[in-house]
Each structure stands twice: as structure tokens, then as C-alpha cells.
């Protein structure tokens, strides 16, 4: 039985006026490639932000590597996190090498490690380039190199292909497959690209504030009825929530009442 890497138990979280996550529970084990799907505003990023201690006001329990994340933040050293590239300020005066070196803060720093991480993502010769000179796909690879340089056990990716071209996307998918299959790295990846999830992931979780499905990719995608009901139901829920948000504030769950 592979080791349990992630355990999310009955997690709920609310921002100012509405609930973003409601009693979400799932587990991921060593070597899993878990795709998280759901419409915009489904709470995928909120879930990651809770798992990464950015948001601590959640209800429920999150354990990573067997430890409650509220007790100790040392587990973060074992995680590589790749945010959406659109959140990066490309005018920032920093080189590829400097960004990758951020991944080694608080760890043993060597130039060789940085160079080999840059090489691994196929950016040889770009070490001294400023990030503003890179394409969306190249910037994405820099962030991957930053996450990989410390050799993490768990890789969390938040819609990583939103701002990149098709060619870069394919290279990126090959790299993820290699990390998961050859290094047995556990990967949790949120995406709107259902085809990519079907091709790469072995497990899938469909969320829209609540968890609608969690299980094997085959079980989800080969059963059209199940897929349609989970995905459509979750999308329908999104529509209903937005409807209530606009027209009837009384229907919104008070996060303080959690």
C-alpha cells in the first residue's frame, strides 16, 4: 500500500460573503497523479491555498505527509507549487537563474542544482535572461524548474497551462508524465483541460464547492452518464450559486456560522 501523502477531511472555507468549499474530502497516495476539475470559481485555487497554509481559517482537517498542516509548516519544504503564470509580474527585474534559486532558499544552495533544473525543463542558454524576455510557456517552465530544484515529493499545479501555447503545453505534459512515472512524484493538478486530465492523470476529483466525484480516471471518463452528471451537476451548482449571490443574499451561507 503506497504511503498517504494528502488527506483532506471535511474541509469548508468561506470568504467574506459566500462559501467556497463545503465539506470536501479526498485522499492522495504516493505516486498518484490526481486531476482536479471544476468550473471557474469552483474553489480549486481556494483548496490549494488551504493545503499550502496561505488560508488557515478553514474548517476540517488537512494532513500532508501524515501531519496536520496547522501544527507545523515544515512539510512545505517537501512541496513544489506552480501557480498560474498570469499571477507573475513579468516586468520584475529578475533572471531565470535568480527565480530558480528562490526554490533553494533555506536549503543547500549550489549553482549546479540550479543549472540542472533549468536544463531539465529545456531552457539551456536562458539562465541569464530576464523573465520579461520569455514567452508564457518559457515562464511556466521557469516556475517548474523553481519547484523541481528542491526535489519535492509532491507537486501542486494550479491551472498551469492557462497562458501557454500548444507546443509548450505538450512539452509540459511530457515533463509531468516523466516526473510522475519515472520519479514516482505525487502530482495534484487543477485544470480545465479535460482531455489532458484524461490522458495524464490516473485519478480525478470533480469539485464545485462540494466534491461531486473522486475516483479513477477510467471510471469517470468511460462512464459518460457519470461524467455528465458530475460535471453538469457541478456546473449547474455554479450557476445556481451565482444566481443566489446576485438575487438573494439571504441564501448565502455565512462563513462565520461554519
Amino acid at each position, binding site marked *: 500500500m503506497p504511503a498517504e501523502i494528502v488527506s483532506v477531511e471535511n474541509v469548508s472555507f468561506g470568504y467574506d460573503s459566500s462559501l467556497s468549499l463545503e465539506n470536501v474530502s479526498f485522499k492522495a497516495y504516493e505516486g498518484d497523479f490526481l486531476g482536479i476539475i471544476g468550473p471557474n470559481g469552483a474553489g480549486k485555487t481556494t483548496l490549494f491555498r488551504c493545503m499550502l497554509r496561505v488560508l488557515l481559517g478553514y474548517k476540517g482537517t488537512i494532513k500532508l505527509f501524515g501531519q496536520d498542516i496547522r501544527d507545523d509548516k515544515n512539510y512545505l519544504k517537501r*512541496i513544489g507549487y506552480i501557480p498560474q503564470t498570469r*499571477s507573475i509580474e513579468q516586468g520584475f527585474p*529578475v533572471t531565470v537563474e535568480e527565480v530558480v534559486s528562490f526554490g533553494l532558499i533555506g536549503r543547500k544552495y549550489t549553482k549546479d542544482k540550479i543549472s540542472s533544473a533549468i536544463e531539465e525543463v529545456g531552457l539551456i542558454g536562458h539562465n541569464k535572461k*530576464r523573465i520579461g524576455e520569455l514567452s508564457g510557456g518559457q515562464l511556466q517552465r521557469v516556475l517548474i524548474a523553481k519547484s523541481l530544484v528542491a526535489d519535492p515529493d509532491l507537486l501542486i499545479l494550479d491551472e498551469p497551462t492557462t497562458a501557454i501555447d500548444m507546443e509548450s503545453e505538450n512539452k509540459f505534459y511530457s515533463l509531468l508524465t516523466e516526473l510522475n512515472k519515472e520519479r514516482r512524484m505525487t502530482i495534484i493538478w487543477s485544470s480545465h483541460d479535460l482531455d489532458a486530465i484524461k490522458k495524464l492523470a490516473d485519478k480525478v476529483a470533480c469539485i464545485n464547492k462540494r466534491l461531486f466525484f473522486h475516483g479513477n480516471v477510467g471510471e469517470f471518463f468511460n462512464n459518460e452518464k457519470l461524467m455528465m452528471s458530475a460535471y453538469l451537476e457541478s456546473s449547474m451548482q455554479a450557476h445556481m450559486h451565482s444566481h443566489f449571490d446576485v438575487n438573494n443574499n439571504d441564501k448565502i451561507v455565512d462563513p462565520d456560522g461554519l
Partner: protein
Amino acid sequence: MVFEILAFGFMQRALVAGVMIAIICSIIGLFLVLKRHSLFGDAMSHVAFGGIAIGLFTNVYPLWTAFIVSILAALGMTKLREFAKIPADSAVAVLLSSGLAIGIVLISLSGGFTLDLFSFLFGSILLVSVQDLIMILIVSSIVLAIISLIYKGLTYVTFDEEQASVGGLSVKNINYLFIVIASVTVIASIRLVGVLLISSLIVLPNITAITMGKGFKKTAIISCGISACSVIVGIIVSYVMNIAPSGAIVLTATAIFLTAVLGKHTVRKIRRSDINIQDVTMSD
């Protein structure tokens, strides 16, 4: 002539103090500019004005009271931002106006503006005493030592706070420490360019260096170079032309900035026309 100028003791003190301040202002300023807190220097210097007024009012060395008031105000502003969720620029505006108001009230109570107060408002680098020089050297060394200790973490936090936090860094502590050393830097620099021009020394060399398109370390080095050059040239020109040194320093920094921007624009234009010529030649 330059050697003659350098023979004066007051000029040597002015240059040493000026270069040290130029270096710390550039380094602190780079983080402030990139955090989009460019007006922080302005706000702190206005708070310092209140602190200086308290010192003059109570007969305590004004820079010490300015240090205490500014550090407390900077920490208060950060807490207020977190607590009341006020945008950074609004918090800076509150600090700037209330600091100045305290100063004006105290000055009116003490019977109006004095020569001392004018020297803090507009700077008086040529009047730097040995005591001032020692204070500037100590403060600069402490600021540089702290920055070198937290350099990597501070750069990461400035680049992206959320990623830095996920990387295991104590973002809050780094930000608090930075705010304290930024306040200290601003107060130590008041002697050079005065309360009214301090933000230019924080912003101008950095936006000039950023236009050069280099990485973080090189941008910081270029900014320090531009800042030190502005101070040296400004002080010498002010002596030769008998004009205010603070104004001469800031105008030199402005001239370097405009030259860099125009230079970059011209180079871009030449490159573009080269590409167009190549395109025409190839199509022929």
C-alpha cells in the same frame, strides 16, 4: 579643481556620508519600488518631519526623535493595513498627511520655523558634522548587514508573497523587518537631501536601473552606481556653482534617468529601422 575641493574636511565628510546614504537608499528603494511602495519614502520623511519637530520642541537631538516616531508610525501603518484592509497607497497617504500635520502643529506651538528646521527640510550635506557622519556610517552598516542577511528571502517576498509563503518563508516577519530598516534609512538620509526630496533618491536611481533590463543583483548594483554618481556630481557641482546640494543631487539623478530613457528609446528605434532595412534588402 576637484582635488582642491576634496581637500576640505567638510567636503570629505559630505562625500563619504553622501555615498553611504546613496547606497542604502538605492538598495532599500529597489525593494520599495518593486513592491509598488514608491511613496513610502515620502510618507516616512513627512512623519520624520513630525519627529524632528518633537525633537526641536523638547530639545532632544531631532534625528533620534525622528527615528523613534518613524519606526512606530511605519509599524503602525503596516498593522493598520492588515487590520483595516486599507490599500497600501491610502495607508501611505494617511501617514504622510498626519505626520506633516503633527510637525506643523508643534512648530506653530514653538513659535515658527527655525534655521535648524530648514536644514532638515531641504538637507544640509555640506554641514555634516563628525557626529552625523558616525551616525550615518553606523546606520548604513547595520542596514547593509541586515539586507545581506535577508536578501534572498526579501527578494522572493518582493517577487511574489504567496509563493514565498508557500516556500516556507515567514513573509510577515520579513516585511516587518524591512519596514523598520526602510524607515531607519529614510531618517538617516534626511541630512543629505532633506525631507522634501528624499523620495527622489529612493525612486530615481532604481527606475533608471530597471530600464536597463538586467537581473535583480545587477539592477541593484547599477542603481547604487547611479545614486553614488548623482551624489558625488551633485555635491561638487553645488560647490562650484554655489547652489543647494540637495537640489543639485536630485537634478543630476533626474538627468541620468532622462538620458537612460531617451537612450533606450533611441537604441530601440535604430534596431527597428535596421530590421526594416534588412527586410527590404531580403525582399529585393
